């Protein structure tokens, strides 16, 4: 019978939220183990070549991968943080045991506190031949290009003009790949307009109220048919265009990866503003399962800057509940909450604010 490893704080997921949580908790004195299923930590941050927004506190002006490297270094330097990569958490059980698979071995861990920071995964849309080689999720294109330095193809149709669609299109252009067009079904561009503007002034069209009607090709994508939509989001006959592309990139939204929360018996709620099923949690990010916290996109799809602050908040709260940082924790909690409010104060943050209010079923200010 294999041994059960007893630890203070287990963090599942080594992306921006998980790494920020690890450092915050360890700085207060807690012993932390971070489990990451990928070969490297840093999550999606390490694929981001663009400069980040927010304020200095969230490293605004630094490029995503530079922020990622900084967070990774902080964890490496901290003697109270242990990180196991290529280790996939399999389950969180009633008796408090967490199982994982790493290096071909089955592991059992008994943490006192858990932070789930597993992020989100890409949504899919239905259209004929959407299963062909050459059709990728946006994250896949980023992974190929920015991690491996391999281009996904020569000419891309990007579906989705949210931040991910706009940013990945820009990254494709930086990698020397032609972007034929960005199409967006809704009548407006969902992402930051400055991202859209820099793409437009490089000559790439952004077509709102357009959708894909089919992809075609023999063994892989050779083209796509797109068409315009009317105000009722119905295709307008006669507006079809045939685009010769060998890559179709789907950037149509993310869904929180909450399987572990469901399994751990957290109370869940479907909140469209947060992009799907999310665990009910209080303002300190603790779910209905005592001692289990969430941070980052798993708690509601948002941005990397808020993922980092949520990570810090969850890390401080978990460490505090373990008995660490009695003198400084309340101040750190208040600071993190204030930063989250600040990030969400503008029009761009309203959706998240409303989503959190629905989740907590409260009127008044949410954070």
């Amino acid at each position, binding site marked *: 019978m294999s041994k059960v490893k007893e630890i203070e704080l287990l963090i599942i997921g080594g992306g921006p939220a998980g790494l920020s949580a690890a450092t915050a908790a360890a700085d207060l004195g807690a012993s932390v183990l971070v489990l990451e299923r990928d070969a490297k930590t840093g999550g999606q941050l390490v694929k981001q070549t663009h400069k980040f927004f927010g304020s200095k506190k969230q490293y605004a002006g630094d*490029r995503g991968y530079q922020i990622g490297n900084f967070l990774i270094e902080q964890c490496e330097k901290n003697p109270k943080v242990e990180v196991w990569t290529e280790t996939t958490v399999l389950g969180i059980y009633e008796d408090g045991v967490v199982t994982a698979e790493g290096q071909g071995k089955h592991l059992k861990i008994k943490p006192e506190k858990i932070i789930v920071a597993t992020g989100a995964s890409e949504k899919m849309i239905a259209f004929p031949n959407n299963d062909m080689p050459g059709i990728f999720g946006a994250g896949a294109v980023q992974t190929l290009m920015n991690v491996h330095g391999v281009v996904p193809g020569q000419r891309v149709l990007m579906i989705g003009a949210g931040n991910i669609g706009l940013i990945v299109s820009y990254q494709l252009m930086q990698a020397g790949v032609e972007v034929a067009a960005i199409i967006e079904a809704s009548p407006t561009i969902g992402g930051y307009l400055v991202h859209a503007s820099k793409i*437009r002034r490089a000559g790439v069209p952004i077509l709102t109220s357009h959708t894909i009607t089919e992809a075609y090709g023999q063994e892989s994508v050779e083209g796509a048919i797109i068409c315009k939509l009317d105000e009722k989001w119905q295709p307008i006959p006669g507006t079809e265009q045939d685009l010769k592309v060998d890559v179709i990139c789907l950037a149509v939204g993310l869904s929180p990866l909450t399987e572990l929360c469901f399994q751990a018996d957290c109370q869940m709620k479907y909140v469209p503003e947060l992009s799907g099923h999310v665990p009910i949690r209080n303002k300190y990010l603790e779910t209905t399962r005592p001692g289990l916290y969430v941070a980052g996109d798993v708690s509601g799809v948002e941005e990397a800057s808020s993922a980092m602050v949520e990570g810090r908040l969850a890390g401080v709260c978990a460490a505090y509940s373990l008995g660490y940082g009695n003198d400084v924790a309340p101040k750190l909690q208040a600071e993190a909450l204030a930063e989250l409010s600040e990030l969400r104060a503008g029009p*761009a943050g309203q959706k998240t604010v409303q989503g959190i209010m629905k989740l907590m079923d409260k009127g008044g200010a949410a954070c």
Partner: protein
Amino acid sequence: MLNKTGVPTAEDVITVSPSEERLKQGPVAIIECFQEIPCNPCTEACKQGAIQPMEDINNLPKLDFDKCNGCGVCLSRCPGLAIFVVDASYSDTEAIVRIPFEYAPVPQTGEKVVGLNRSGEELGTFEVKKVQSGGQKNKTYTVWLVVPKAQAMDVRGIRLGGIRHAK
């Protein structure tokens, strides 16, 4: 409309443009930022104190054209690549437009490039006067283009030259 096309309209641009007089005096920053998003590095980049610190980081930047000396630090720091510097005092007939550039290959001084407007339409072929590197960490280049004065408020991009790949 900007939120449908991603292209600032003439009306949008007027809200951030200095007077003709100020343009003639020398280089000045044009901050083409029209959407309230949480972002404030420009306020910290400006050493002249020309960009007001924001109480709420979602506020649009407010530039004092008289305090601005057109140094271009904000241009190279803006995460949205939304800042340009225009110097209409360059000559009797020409102005310099400085744009942020993050593609490869980077244009060379003296090279002729095709200039584009905010919609990506070609406006003509222009000479590259100077290319400044943003440095090891920043990596955003500033490309100085010589354009006819009348086009100084239109030229905002370069037709990309394509990248050489290994086969």
